[in-house]
């Protein structure tokens, strides 16, 4: 059965630069996905709760403030606490490549840095769904 892919696009932390998050939200919509956009200043707790209630396949987070090493892993930790193991978690924003390894070890499946074509993200989601 063809199931519509649902994605939570979230802005964790305090940074207000949501250009990238909105562009990706729109690109995912145009790729036929349903996008739940959370708006700014989301705590990891809020993101995980929204992901659970909305039963999304993917959590896509964007951070430009440098707080990624703190906030991204908090989200995957909370998912694990709730025994949610079938949600794909990806991230984007201004994130030094040196941090990719650490974030991957924390369950962030991929990091999409500045300049990533939206088509790359769309394709990654389609091929890496966990359910």
């Amino acid at each position, binding site marked *: 059965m063809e199931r519509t892919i649902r994605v939570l696009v979230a802005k964790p932390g305090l940074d207000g630069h949501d250009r990238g998050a909105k562009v990706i939200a*729109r690109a995912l*919509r145009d790729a036929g996905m349903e996008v739940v956009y959370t708006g700014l200043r989301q705590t990891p707790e809020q993101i995980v709760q929204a992901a659970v209630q909305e039963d999304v396949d993917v959590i896509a987070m964007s951070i430009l403030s440098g707080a990624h090493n703190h906030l991204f892993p908090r989200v995957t930790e909370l998912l694990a606490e709730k025994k949610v193991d079938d949600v794909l978690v990806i991230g984007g924003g201004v994130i030094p490549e040196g941090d990719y390894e650490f974030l991957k070890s924390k369950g962030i499946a991929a990091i999409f840095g500045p300049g990533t074509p939206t088509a790359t993200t769309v394709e990654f989601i389609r091929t890496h769904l966990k359910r």
Partner: protein
Amino acid sequence: MSGNEKLKAELARWSAGVEKSLAKHPERRERFVTGSKAPVERLYTPVDLEGRDHLEDIGLPGEYPFTRGVQSTMYRGRFWTMRQYAGFATAEESNKRYKYLLEQGQTGLSVAFDLPTQIGYDSDHPLSAGEVGKVGVAIDSLADMEILFDGIPLDKVSTSMTINAPAAVLLAMYIAVAEKQGVTPDKLNGTIQNDILKEYVARGTYIFPPEPSMRLITDIFAYCSKEVPAWNTISISGYHIREAGSTAVQEVAFTLADGIAYVEAAIKAGLDVDEFAPRLSFFFNAHNDLFEEVAKFRAARRLWAKVMKERFGAKSPKSWMLRFHTQTGGSTLTAQQPDNNVVRVAVQALAAVLGGTQSLHTNSRDEALALPTEESVRIALRTQQIIANESGAAETVDPLAGSYYVESLTNRIEDEAWNYIRKIDSLGGAVKAIEHGFVQQEIQDAAYAYQMDVESGERVVVGLNKFQVKEAAPEGLLRVDPSVGASQAAKLEALRAKRDSARVEAALASLKAASKSDANLMPPIVEAVKAYATLGEICDVLRATFGEYQQKVTI
């Protein structure tokens, strides 16, 4: 006009010939456009400027409508202020960086605050976790501010603070630090960004809803016009609007529409336009399309002069002048082949100088990756110094004036910006247009169109979608020590134990009372700051009275 008739005939002949040769020698593309996707013709001539009056439209430098610049001698008098935005983790480190920059020949300070500070949370607030000291310095109380400016004579430097929602509190702290140095407020020079409207549409560090936010702003206008007369009380910012993806025209239009809203609010609050308007300043972006950017700055100056003179009836020429700071475009930097960014920044900085900026921040090459290293910051500053001292661009006033192309672009940008401003007026002004989501939607549509153009290859970004190379991960990026959060929290704890808590309580109580009345909020904020009430405590008092802004989301 007979000259133009002859020219037109010649042009027709010439065009026919060119069209014929196109079959054999086609141009690179069918349509040529500016960086903002406006059409660009093959050739510009005096015909394109027909019907324009030189004196009325272009005029002379230092005179209405200021198309050529706000000073008569511009950079022949002195160069623009080279002002690099910087702020790192703790007040101690930032203080060190400021002293370094001043030694390197920088002439003004620009303070970057971390996000908790910008949103009015103390470093130990739960929402501050992971953010303390990340994008700028963490300021929780006057104690931090004292360290930040330790050994920097505040009567000798001009300081620009990128602070908006809690601008009143940070300004109060600056005044209090100066007082401790024995500097009276009337000797202080600098700028607070204090532009809340663009926070709602582009930058996101808002706290309160529009109405009380506008009140805080007009309170600052009123207070400063008496107490801190040389202070630039607002920096009306197009920079972030452009970063959010707008076109050059939208940058001008939405920024000036915000400006109009502030002037209207101040007049409504009973201020005389010529009393506060000379202290308004602007902040624009500089992107890669050199000519369009230069035209943008010129159009903005002309437009604002007309707005102030004709719409608001300002009498003082100082009220008509659009003075602005420029920062090169952060969103134009690529994470790929970051050294290429040095060249982009040079072009953008040149655009700002040719456009007559009053001060300039040049971005560092590594900013698409992380906060800049000291070496990168130095190259960025040197870029400005090369333009100033070696390029010749500073030797005459407004050197591109009279270029048929640049003048045409200037006219077009002004016309199109007027169209937007009229549209915003019809929606009830900038505040209403933002509440409707109109401004946000326009910006996002432009941002998405840009992204699609890059992805389709329609727009070339060197190193990103063309001329790529395989490259190793960059090294030596600046990292913020993650322990800053803990050390700020410890400082706060010590402060709360040490300070006179009765005095804090009393100061916060009178702030609360003032917030519920029509009284100017600056005096009680200054008092609270001096009592070492924290930024978070002060903002919490205001949150309780004013409520918090709920984001209007458009996608």
